[in-house]
């Protein structure tokens, strides 16, 4: 086979590999929410925030903690402080896309309440991050939301 023929074959393999990696496969992470949260809070300051239990998770976001394998939820006592960090590690049967849609709706409502009312809070809400990956969810409203997201993805995808 010619050299150019070999290159064509390699290209075909690389293409199949690319499609496989991008769209099929990837296992759920085996890390618990606490471990993921640790990675996230290493990048994102939790100063002024405190960790809450499932009661608050329900009253704020309408989620029941028992539906998940584990979760970690940070928030603020001060109602005008909109910062939040939520990490959820789902169970096998949890429908995380539905949970994501639910949180997304809550976040949008909250945003529309603060939009045109508090510029700082709404700027924070504007750059909120909500993402599902490898069986876990991150929802973060924070100055450093982007780096929190990065730490999250790095942690669950590795």
């Amino acid at each position: 086979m010619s050299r150019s023929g070999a290159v064509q074959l390699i290209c075909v393999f690389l293409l199949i590999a690319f499609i496989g990696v991008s769209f099929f496969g990837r296992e759920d992470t085996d890390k618990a929410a606490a471990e993921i949260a640790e990675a996230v809070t290493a990048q994102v300051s939790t100063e002024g925030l405190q960790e809450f239990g499932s009661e608050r998770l329900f009253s704020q976001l309408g989620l029941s903690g028992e539906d998940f394998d584990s979760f970690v939820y940070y928030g603020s006592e001060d109602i005008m402080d909109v910062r939040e960090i939520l990490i959820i590690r789902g169970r096998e049967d949890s429908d995380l896309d539905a949970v994501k849609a639910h949180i997304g709706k809550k976040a949008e409502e909250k945003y529309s309440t603060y939009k045109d009312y508090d510029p700082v809070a709404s700027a924070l809400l504007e750059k909120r991050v909500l993402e599902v990956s490898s069986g876990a969810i991150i929802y973060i409203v924070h100055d450093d939301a982007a780096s929190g997201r990065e730490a999250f993805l790095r942690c669950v995808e590795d």
Partner: protein
Amino acid sequence: MVFSSATFLFLFLPFTLVLYHLKLFRNKERETGKKNLVLLIMSLIFYAWGEPVYIILMLLSIVYNYNAAIDIDSYIGSPKKKKLVFICALIFNLSVLGFFKYYGFLTESINSIFSLSLPVREIPLPVGISFYTFQVLSYIIDVYRGDVKAQKSIIPFATYISMFPQLIAGPIVQYYDVEKQLTDREVTAEKFAAGIMFFIKGLGKKVIFANTVGAVCTEIFGMETASLSVLTSWIGIICYTLQIYFDFSGYSDMAIGLGKMLGFDFIQNFNFPYKATSITDFWRRWHISLSSWFRDYVYIPLGGNRRGTARNIFNLLVVWSLTGLWHGAAWNFIVWGIFYGVLLIAEKYIFARVLERVPVFIRYIMTMVTVMVGWVFFSAENLSSAVNYLKSMFGLYGNGFADSTAEYLLSENFFSLAVMILCATGVFAALPRIKNFRFNIALMSAGYIVIFIICIIYLISETYNPFLYFRF
């Protein structure tokens, strides 16, 4: 990256132009080599800016097809091997396009027809894949037919595939047309100035016209279809008709202009399609590079019109279903394509005689109404909403001819719609002109500069996003 963004206009473009025109070599060939390299690198950055992951796909396609073409060229003595490599290349390119563009559509259609439940996956469409795949195919087919020689050097080839002016929205440049320019081209001040004019014209079409009229049709399409009056729905589709033309031809103009700034001459992609007096005429003027592609690489190889009427009708239907499918992976696009196929066949075989006797003005109106009906299928999310919109256009909901919404929309947009219609139909272009060349150039330069400034004003103020204490 899109041309109508601050990143492109104020960072990417000036930076690229400097690197590109900075003269490094006295030797003309080496200078062109440097230009190609600069253009390739900047084009890859341009693509990666919008598609950071899918750039891998484009690179694979470049490397694969570069080698495949060399193989095809080298098997001149053995037609069988040559054919094998060629078929493999066709399969490779079509399956990449097929997977990334049509996977979701195919699995969904198969599931609904055979009531199966194959896993449906939403695969984000790589920007420009339909355009660059068609360019690659034109190259491979031309090499196989022996119309062009395979490009021996990978940089000019990669430059041809990835060239940023036409990369993401055409025109589909056939290799044959730019083969010489890839290794031998020149930029003069005159050409550069012409490029600027094309670019600004395109930018104006996109930013001033298409975006403005697009806002109106988004508003109308967002209303409850069943409650639209006849006039409102016609205003909506007229706006869409204008939007799609200004958007698409604007993009082509910008591409042609940028090409000229870099020394390339691309073929014209639009020639006042809304001046057409028949459907056949319309398709000679609309997205010319795509129709030529289908003519050269599908219609003629199928036998064109030389194998009798029945075969010709079959060929036309194949070409037009594919044209529809090329525009998007959904049934309404296929219907849109077949709609045109049938109309073209009818014009050719049934009405040809009749049409000759109809006054031009009537033919024009008929053509435009047909085209607008076509755009209903094109713009709709699915077939049933297209049918509903058509119902309201033809008054089947019984909401009357006009209501206050229609009157308000009309009075609000009358001026801008009038100007745009005059521009789109080429009335302005047909106005008599002063013959003084210098005067014309001066007027043109001033006009284009003003348009450019207006475009920037529109672009920046689009992001005006005041924060109000509204929530009281």
